[in-house]
């Protein structure tokens, strides 16, 4: 760590590690030390360099939905092991169980409905901490259920994506979730429904190549990595280094695949305005 980035606290008081103490948070991008309470209140955005760290599903919901109005649905749908998949170290259903304990979630997406500045919205929020936000049968089913609810109740559908792609352990069934969710969105669109897709860091693979890219409006958080193939796969295929900024939010906007890049602080307001403009 360079001297000028040293934390602004009195080191004479003791040799304790301020990060481990939990009082301070070190920004992984600019290394500046941020008071943990400020970091949380700022929804994990660095006040110094504007780095947007990952939010878990409920932190995200809290940052968007009017307090006390979110009603989670279908959180009783859980994964099974349809292929009897075992990677040699751990059976797939145990891997899911570990992820549940680690994240306190049932799966990589939380769905439900609530109010956004008083407007009724249907929400699906992915959580990268649950097996890399991978899409298996449960994620596909819950996203589809949410879309079907949006059609039924004529609510705006908002999906926050964060995913490394399809969940390999469910084989072909995870691939089929791409078709299932996209078909549901076709129905929503035919019914005149409004779908806003919000891409957060990272959104790649089967999620990008299905519902995430099908928004009537597509929003991205600043600097989010968004792509079909992961950067490592591309580098291995073409055997060359990728240019800086490749597959980042601004790159996608330049190439015409993202409508608006919105900072986390302005997300709620922007979503509200979009719903207002279209209703």
């Amino acid at each position: 760590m360079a001297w000028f980035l040293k934390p602004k606290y009195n080191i004479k008081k003791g040799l304790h590690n301020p990060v481990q103490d939990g009082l301070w948070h070190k920004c992984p991008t600019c290394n500046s030390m941020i008071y943990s309470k400020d970091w949380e209140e700022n929804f994990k955005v660095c006040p110094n360099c504007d780095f947007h760290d990952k939010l878990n599903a409920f932190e995200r919901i809290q940052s968007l939905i009017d307090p006390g109005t979110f009603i989670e649905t279908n959180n009783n749908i859980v994964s099974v092991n349809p292929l009897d998949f075992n990677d040699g170290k751990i059976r797939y259903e145990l891997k899911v169980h570990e992820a549940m304990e680690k994240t306190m979630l049932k799966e990589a997406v939380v769905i439900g409905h609530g109010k956004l500045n008083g407007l009724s919205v249907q929400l699906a929020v992915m959580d990268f901490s649950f097996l890399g936000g991978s899409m298996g049968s449960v994620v596909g089913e819950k996203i589809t259920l949410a879309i079907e609810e949006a059609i039924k109740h004529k609510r705006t559908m908002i999906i926050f994506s964060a995913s490394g792609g399809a969940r390999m352990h469910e084989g072909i069934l995870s691939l089929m979730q791409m078709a299932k969710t996209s078909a549901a969105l076709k129905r929503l669109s035919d019914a005149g429904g409004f779908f806003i897709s919000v891409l957060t860091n990272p959104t790649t693979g089967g999620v990008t190549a299905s519902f995430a890219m099908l928004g009537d409006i597509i929003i991205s958080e600043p600097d989010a990595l968004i792509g079909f193939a992961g950067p490592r796969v591309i580098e291995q295929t073409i055997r060359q280094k990728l240019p800086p900024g490749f597959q980042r939010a601004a790159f996608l906007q330049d190439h015409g695949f993202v409508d608006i890049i919105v900072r986390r602080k302005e997300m709620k307001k922007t979503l509200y305005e979009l719903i207002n403009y279209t209703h």
Partner: protein
Amino acid sequence: MTAYYLSFEKPIEEIEKSIAELRESHSGNREVDFSIEIDELEKKREYLIKTIYENLTPWQVTQVARHPERPIFSDYQKQLFDDFLEIHGDRLFRDDPAIVTGFARIGNEKFVIVGEDKGKDTKEKIRRNFGMPNPEGYRKAMRAMRLAEKFKKPILSLIDTAGAYPGIEGEERGQAEAIARSLFEMSGLKTPIISLVIGEGGSGGALAIAVADRVLMLQNSIYSVISPESCASILWRDAGLAERAAEALKMTGPNLLKLKVIEEIIPEPMGGAHRDTAATMKNVRTSVLRHLAELKRISTPKLIQKRYERFRRLGAFEIVK
């Protein structure tokens, strides 16, 4: 005889070589009659092919699906279609030779065709990017499929790709968007759609043209969310363990039939499609025409509803208290 033998086909190769040698001496030497020996070897050969091919492991099926002499799109173009008129381009960027689109007749039926073509020789393979489409390929396919809807013609898609191409330009032009759009639009196309996996069904690059009313697979084809090599290198950091991954991924016909991902496995002649292209085409023709006849009896709104439900129910999960 084929010119290329897979590693597990070595016994077949040996016997076919012996037969060929005997035949040669037979024709060069009229005094000695080898026909009995040849007959016996032929019987042995048939038995060998049968026992090997009736017990293929998923990894061996993968190798057959990628066999260099396996019939690819251009063979279907010549031998399955009674005629074919190719159309080119996505009207946006360029023509992607990895996907071929056009009109074809099979018997009395007119189809709009969408097919992934890996290319025969090295020059063709390079031109067709080894059958790995870029976004413009999927957009061309969508354009052809919209024509099918407009002129009320059924769509037949032939799938044979390792996957959509993971490159810089593909990302710049929206590979993910092109695939997503195809899934979205195909689910609502008001015309019957039949998809057939003829070799490799590689992930999103295959599914992008397979949101169909009927999904069929040739006996020795594969359909998977990820290649066994990539799966092995992710799980065990060793692509050499692909055999194990092929087993775990359940990517062959019987498993996919059980999971209701496909409707039918079309049988291949004994020893694989590459040993008898004509017989393969005959089986495909019969099956495709039978499925089309069934689909034509369904009203369009019901067809779309059934297609939605077909994909809607795919997945496995549990509802807990």
